[in-house]
Each structure stands twice: as C-alpha cells, then as structure tokens.
C-alpha cells in the first residue's frame, strides 16, 4: 500500500504554512491571546481564502475534503492559531447541506457552531428540546466557539425524535456566557436557549452527527500533531543551545532518547491521521475505528509529548516568556476536545467482540 499527499495537497500545505508564518508568528498569536481577540485572525483567514478549503464546491466551498481539512488543522495547531471558529464552522457545515442561504453566509465568514459540549464525542448528551412551534430551549455548556458563531446548529429532541435545528445567535432567545480556557488559543461558551426561534435542517440528523464525531476526532488529532511537532522542534533547538557541565544538554542520551520518543509519536500520528482522514471522507465501513484510533492514540501521545518537551526545557519551559506553553496547552486541550482517549477507546472496545 502506498498513500501520500498529492502534489496539490503538498502545495496547499506549504502555502498555508508560509501564510501562517507571515500572519501568525508567535508574537502575533500572543498579541491576539492577550487581547482575547480571535476575530482578527479569523477575518484574515477568511479574506485570504483558506476558510472554504475542504468544503465541496457544490456546497459553495473551494473543494477538497477531510484530508485538506486535516492538513489545515495540523498547520493551525503547529502555529497555535486561534482557530476554534474555523473548526466549529467546518464541523457544522455538513448540517447546512439543505440550507443554502445560511451556508453561503457561513462560508463567507459568518461562522457556525454545532451545539454540543466541547468535551463530548458528538453529539454527547442532547439537553435541548424543540416545541411544535419550532422554539428551542435548553442549556448546552462549553460549546466550542459558541461565542464566535453567527449560526448555531442545534441537535434537539421533539415529537419527531432528534432533529437538527438552525438558530441565529442574534435571536433574543439566545444567551451566551463565555468561559475561560487554560488554552487561550481556543474559546468555549455556555449557550442558553429560551424559546429561541429555529428552522428545521432537512438532513438526516443521526448520520450527520455521527460523521461530525469522526471528523472532529480526525481534526483534533491533526491539531495535536501540529502542536507536538512544533514542541519537538522547540525542544531540539533548545537542547542544542543550552549548555550544562560544559556541553549542550542535547548531548546527553537521556535527552536524545526523550526527543526521539516524541518523534516516534509524531510519525505514528501522521500515519494514522491521514489514513483516518481518507477513510472517514471516503465512507469506509471501518472509518469510525480509524477515527477513534487516531483521536485516542494521537492526542494521548501529544499530551505526553507536551510533558516530555517541558522536561527537556527545564524551568524556562514553565514560564510564559518561552513559547512552549502555547503548544503545551494546545496539546493538553486536544486530549480532551471532542472526546477523551478513554472515551474513544470505549468506542474501539465496543467495536470488538468483548463482553
């Protein structure tokens, strides 16, 4: 078996990496994070044409699929870019397949968010109900980019079972309460719906949500991979500069081996993530297993790598003066975002013939 990125995909990755290098160096990211400003980045991302990559052209995007989205997530993670709005929007877009007007606005940069708690495997618990008049009520805590979206895609229970409803965030029945995350490069908000007006979304809710769960798993894993590889680069660079006992600390085997172990994780992550991306995109019958393996393995390894990278940096890594903490926190949130490794391992266990 041979699988590799196409020339076009490689070129896209390089273009995005260069763009992020220009627009989102860590000084710029720090500025946005200190000001709690995620919209400046989002606007540039939209304006420069990256927002619709990975969305099919017939849906109004620029074409490509989950592999392109995974490349995007990896690069965003590598730069600790404030990308919650992008991820939330891309997870919500498939639900807007039959809502062309809203979709056009969303893809023009308005943003959307799927109303699920950010730590759940989509859809998680569904606390929202819809009445006969289409009014939705209920509280969903910790919605990723919940405070940055113009449209909310709401899984709701009603007479017809679970359906997806579209709510405008400006509706008077919508109340948002932002929450602080340790990783300041992402945002969540509690969303309280009280008789908010909603429109039905004519898609198969169960299928769309199951697919969103797998897509979230792959993209968060890719984000973790990007952050991890960046931490490895930082650690290797630091261990070459920092001298102790008259030699660079990178000359110590214990340091070399620790860095090599991160590298093993990075390579394994890349293999599983892009397999999973292609598998989920292509509707492989084992897609959920690939997505689960990617999320469980990669994000757990990313969180471990973060600790190792911190160890390799010594006390400087513990300060905000050094950039490491941006990626450390990124990888730590990725471990929990849209389902912990434990939760995804349960998915894998359920797929095995265990009692």
């Amino acid at each position: 078996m041979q699988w590799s990125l196409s020339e076009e995909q490689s070129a896209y990755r390089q273009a995005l990496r260069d763009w992020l290098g220009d627009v989102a160096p860590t000084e710029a990211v720090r500025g946005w994070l200190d000001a709690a400003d995620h919209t400046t980045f989002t606007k540039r991302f939209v304006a420069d044409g990256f927002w619709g990559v990975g969305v099919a052209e017939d849906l109004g995007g620029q074409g490509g699929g989950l592999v392109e989205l995974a490349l995007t997530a990896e690069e965003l993670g590598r730069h600790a870019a404030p990308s919650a709005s992008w991820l939330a929007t891309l997870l919500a877009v498939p639900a807007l397949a039959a809502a062309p007007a809203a979709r056009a606005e969303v893809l023009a940069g308005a943003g959307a968010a799927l109303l699920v708690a950010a730590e759940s495997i989509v859809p998680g618990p569904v606390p929202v109900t819809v009445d006969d008049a289409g009014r939705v009520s209920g509280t969903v805590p910790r919605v990723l980019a919940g405070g940055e979206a113009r449209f909310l895609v709401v899984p709701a229970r009603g007479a017809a079972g679970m359906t997806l409803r579209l709510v405008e965030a400006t509706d008077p029945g919508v109340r948002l309460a932002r929450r602080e995350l340790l990783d300041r490069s992402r945002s969540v908000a509690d969303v309280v719906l009280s008789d908010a007006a909603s429109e039905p979304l004519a898609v198969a809710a169960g299928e769309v949500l199951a697919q969103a769960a797998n897509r979230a798993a792959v993209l968060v894993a890719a984000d973790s991979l990007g952050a991890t590889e960046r931490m490895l680069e930082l650690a290797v660079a630091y261990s070459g500069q920092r001298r102790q006992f008259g030699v660079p600390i990178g000359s110590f085997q214990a340091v070399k081996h620790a860095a090599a172990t991160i590298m093993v994780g990075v390579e394994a992550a890349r293999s599983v993530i892009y397999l999973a991306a292609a598998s989920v995109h292509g509707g492989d019958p084992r897609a959920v297993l690939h997505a689960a393996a990617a999320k469980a393995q990669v994000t757990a390894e990313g969180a471990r790598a973060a600790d190792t990278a911190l160890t390799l940096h010594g006390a400087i890594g513990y300060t905000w003066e050094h950039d490491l903490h941006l990626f450390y926190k990124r990888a730590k949130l990725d471990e929990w975002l849209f389902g912990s490794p434990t939760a995804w391992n349960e998915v894998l266990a359920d797929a095995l013939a265990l009692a």
Partner: protein
Amino acid sequence: MDFDLTDEQATIRRAVAELAAKFDDQYWADKDAAHEFPTEFYRAFADGGWLGITIPEEYGGHGFGITEASLLLEEVAASGGGMNAASSMHLSIFGMHPVIVHGSDELKRENLPRIVTGDLHVCFGVTEPGAGLDTTRITTFARRDGSDYIINGRKVWISKALESEKILLLTRTTRFEDVSRKTEGLTLFLTDLDRDHVDIRPIRKMGRNAVSSNELFIDDLRVPAAHRVGEEGQGFRYILDGLNPERMLIAAEALGLGRAALRRAVRYGNEREVFGRPIGKNQGLQFPLADSLARLDAAELALRKATWLYDHGRPCAREANTAKYLCADAAFQAADRALQTHGGMGYAEEYHVARYFREARLLRIAPLSQEMVLNYLGEHVLGLPRSY
C-alpha cells in the same frame, strides 16, 4: 523508627547468603536446563537447620517469624538461585502454617519434625482448572466413608508435586450449591500423595524448571480423618490465614531475584566495552538500572513494614499485598533491564539473566496476579465497589 535488622536477623541473612553462595549460577542453570530438583542445595539447607526457621521449637524448628523467613528466602533468591532455589523450600518454610495453628497434636508430631529435617517434601494443593483464583469454586470433593474420606477431583499448578510425599489439600466436603455462605464447606487435609490414586503430570512451562509445576488427577484417594486439618468445613478460613505470609514471602523472593538481576547488569555494564568505553557510561543504560535500584529499595521498605506488622500481630493485608505488587514489578523490570543491558548476550543462557527474566515474569502472575492485588486494594483498602 528503627530500620536496622536485629543482630539475629543480620546473622541469619549473612549465614544464608554464605551457604547459598556455595551453589553458583552454573549449578542453577544446569538444574533448570535438566528439569532436575536441586537436591544438593535443598539438603544443604535442611542440614543447616534452615527449613524449620518458622516451625515451633517443640517440633524441632526455630520458631522465628515471617521477617526472618523472608530474609532467608530473599537471600536464597538473591544468590542467583532465583525461584528454583526459593521454590525448592518455599512450602517447608511457611506452608505448614495452617497445620501449626489448626492441626491436631498428632498431625503436628507426625509431620513437622520431618519438615525440619528435610525428610518430608510437601506441596500445596488449592488451585483447580475450573476455579482459578475464585477459590470457593473448587470442586475436588472429599466424601465421608466411615472413618475415612474418599477424594476425587483435579488440581492444577501444584508446585513440586512430583517431588512431594505429601500434599496440603483443599477440598469441598459440602458442594458449593449446598452451602449458605460460599466460604463454608471446604476442608483441608495433610495427606499422602498416593501415586496409585493421584496421577501427577508436569506442565511444560517457560521457566523455573528445576521445580515442577503439575496437574493432579485425583481418583478415589482414601484419606483417614486423622489427616484432616482442624474442623470439617473450615478449610477456607485456615487457608486464608496463610495468604498474607505467602504474599510477603513471594515478595521477598521477587526482591532477591531483582537484586540478582541488577547485580549482573551492573557487572556487565562495567565490563563490556563498545565504542571505546564501558556501556554503563551510556545514560540510556545507566538510568534504567539506577531507576530499578530505587524501585527495588522502595519495594524492600514496603516488604519490611509488612513482615514487621505481621510479626507484631497487627493487621497487614494492605502492606502484604502492596509488598507483593511492588516487589514483583520492581523485580521484573530489573530483570528486563538486565537483559536489555546484556544486548544479544542477555538472550543467551550463558549470562543467566534470561533465566532470571523468565522467573521474574512468573511473579507477576503467581501466586496471584498483580490485578488481583489491585482488586484487593481497591475494594478492601480504598472502599470502592467490588469490581469482579
């Protein structure tokens, strides 16, 4: 707090180490390869009076506690004899505990002095293929027949049965289905392993091959009531008494084995030169060995505390289980790292660490698995719901 051994304990430790050192690694490698019981070694310890270390003085023993017994078995294993050495005498050292506490005077007079002299080999017959660690589920049945019992059933993983004259045998005298509490209705015997009625088949296995592990097929074995230990139906309780000491002694054996492996690894790390320097100069090799030293030392403290509590008549289940868990893990890790330190030579029998490795692996399974220790700690110490 006092971390010193008593003078007596220090003397025991030194004397055992000296005696065990007379049997070198080659002796054990040969016995292991030939699947041959270490008779000379066993005889030397019997003649030295060591087998009776915990047996009361009135039956010819020394009446020492578990601390002394654990020091003995630790040193025996640490000599390089490992589990072959320890298992050859393990049952003599403490296996008679249920008999000492609950047996009749006659049973004790008949058996204990012979244990001390080494004349009598015994094995411990509890586990069965259908029950595993769920001991109350055993089905080997002792049916009353006049003044005798007739026993039928199967046992598995019976160490040293091949070499033993007698067996401490746990049976059911009331079926599981017919008792109100599952721990009732079990009865313990110390009786002859009559080859006409017990078929003993050694199990082919990975290591500790100088001492056999066996499957027993018991067919109409007639046992006089005088061979019963204590009361009928109370056998489970008698066995239970001995479980904590057994865990501590296994922990001690693991600890000794880990020390032996680490000693070999350090020697090789200093001797072997690659890239123009001793391989022990590599952090990738030195750190794991230093880490194993720290883990063995920590496990030793847990063990010493456990045996101290037991010898002072205090509850020690938490500590005994912890000691078994930590010593077994530390020993296996030390053996694994010793093998790694030796590179390809570790895989050769010549350097003995392969033998230690195979034996150390056993200790994470026997006499109970590490997971069962965690079950105990989780349920009985932490107060979490029973998980199995």
